[in-house]
């Protein structure tokens, strides 16, 4: 009996409760709040990590996996409640939550999701018409991503500055409707952005060296092969060595150029106080493990989801989004970031055609800036769109 208790103790060390979505309803194709309730049942402090993971997609669309990992420390018999943004794409029907300590897995359970295909109507304070969710001012998030599951929000009580900024950002960039929203409204076409990214190459081949090299090689090879047939093998080998050296030098030079091409689009509205919309597209010319600081949500293509895994890791600097890049498969992420965006030596520029197709906004009022950044292995094109 004592042995049984000893074996059972690690399993009882941590109790985890999970709730996904407002009022327990997870809206599909939106970022939902995921509440984790943690309770340490042990007289010892708990130090470990929580991993939340879920499969997305279908055999027809392709399947991938989302994973979020965060470190946890709980005092003896302590309890806490955490909230994290959790995207729910098509095909996600349950979550797996695992807790790890030094001794190994101390908790693992699957939680089914209660899915809703429609975005919800929510009210804060007494709503003028029936709503799906009634929010309390204490629960109201300051992260606009968590308001994504709402289509309409009735606000009947005064909001804090943070909550007001979140509502305005949600209304401006995520297509929500609220009486307190600003006139700024921006939407995007994911197909147009994918189409632009598909045409991008991290760095095109160095044609000015490659084409003459190829022509010299092929034209020179004819006479050299004839001499080889007459027994002059060393001329042939010498010729080959010269062009092998050329190819090796070409390779050494090309190894230093960028392998990843990133397109950042940053949209800022003056009337939206704290947040801006950031889109990030990435293409790579080889398999790369890639990461971005912050919590980014992937905008998925219509099909071909296999391998589009995303991992969010909570680091001392905050969330970090990690994803793999495969040649020929652009990836598209978005987030609502705090203003101002990164400091850039950006220059005014007319909006290119692809950008006007990607973003639906009043272009006649927009000011556009462009900057090019080059880091080791990365080439980044930044477009900043400023709206009144």
């Amino acid at each position: 009996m004592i042995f049984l208790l000893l074996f059972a103790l690690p399993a009882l060390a941590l109790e985890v409760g999970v709730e996904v979505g407002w009022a327990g309803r997870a809206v599909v194709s939106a970022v939902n709040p995921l509440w984790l309730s943690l309770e340490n049942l042990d007289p010892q402090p708990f130090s470990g990590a929580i991993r939340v993971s879920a499969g997305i997609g279908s055999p027809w669309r392709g399947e991938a996996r989302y994973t979020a990992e965060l470190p946890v420390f709980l005092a003896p018999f302590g309890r806490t409640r955490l909230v994290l943004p959790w995207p729910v794409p098509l095909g996600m029907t349950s979550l797996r939550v695992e807790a790890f300590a030094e001794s190994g897995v101390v908790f693992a359970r699957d939680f089914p999701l209660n899915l809703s295909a429609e975005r919800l109507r929510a009210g804060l304070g007494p709503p003028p018409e029936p709503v799906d969710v009634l929010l309390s001012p204490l629960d109201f998030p300051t992260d606009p991503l968590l308001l994504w599951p709402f289509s309409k929000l009735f606000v009947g009580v005064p909001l804090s500055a943070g909550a007001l900024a979140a509502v305005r950002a949600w209304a401006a960039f995520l297509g929500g409707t609220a009486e307190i929203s600003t006139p700024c409204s921006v939407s995007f076409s994911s197909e147009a952005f994918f189409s632009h990214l598909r045409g991008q190459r991290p760095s095109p081949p160095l044609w000015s060296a490659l084409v003459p090299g190829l022509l010299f090689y092929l034209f020179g090879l004819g006479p050299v092969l004839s001499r080889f047939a007459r027994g002059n093998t060393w001329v042939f080998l010498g010729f080959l060595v010269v062009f092998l050296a050329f190819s090796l030098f070409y390779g050494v030079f090309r190894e230093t150029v960028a392998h990843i091409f990133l397109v950042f689009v940053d949209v800022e509205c003056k009337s939206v106080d704290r947040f801006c919309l950031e889109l990030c597209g990435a293409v790579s010319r080889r398999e790369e493990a890639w990461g971005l600081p912050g919590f980014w949500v992937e905008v998925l293509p219509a099909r071909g989801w296999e391998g589009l895994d995303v991992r969010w890791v909570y680091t001392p600097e905050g969330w970090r989004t990690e994803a793999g890049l495969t040649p020929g498969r652009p990836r598209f992420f978005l987030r609502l970031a705090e203003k101002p965006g990164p400091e850039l030596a950006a220059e005014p520029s007319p909006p290119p055609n692809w950008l006007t197709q990607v973003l639906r906004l009043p272009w006649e009022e927009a000011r556009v800036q462009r900057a090019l950044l080059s880091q080791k292995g990365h080439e980044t094109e930044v477009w900043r769109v400023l709206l009144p």
Partner: protein
Amino acid sequence: MRLPALPPPLVTPFHGFAILSGAALPVSLLWPEPTVGRTLFLQVLVFLQGILSLQIGEVERGYGGFRPHARLLRLFFFTATALALALPFLLVHRVETGSDWPAFSLSLLFLLAHGFVWTSAGYGLPAVVRSEGLRFVVKYGGLVLANVLPLFFAPFVSGLWVLPALWEGRGAAAGLALYLGLSGVSIPWIWRGRRGS
């Protein structure tokens, strides 16, 4: 060291192989869909190498009187020389597709084995199929069938699948082992075939 001279009937096939595989390189680099472009050059190369290797084997069959070990060395040398012709293109393709050196080395090993298997087939075929017209059909028909048919049920047999898989580091050890094994088996086959002819 005295290296063998290229038999004159092989000058045009060697040059043609270099021109066609050289042309395939910019085409694959410019291909609008990068996932297709990455493998296109390799698939063209492996197919052209099969054709050239068959020609090397057939030309060698009727060229000079050499002892079996010398004949084997000649077959291997010309197979390796054909591969060396495409090596500058492969080096450029490696850096443009970001393939790593181990994958590149395994791909070269596969190409060498693949080339030697088809050289052996080209060398041995005249002893089995006497009619030139029928031999032409068997030779090139066999190459097409061996590369295309297995794609549907046993892709590791087809060079069109094995080479891109090795290049991308997706395994394909069975395909590599198969061609290395076949080239090993073809050594005594050439040896015996020469004695018998």
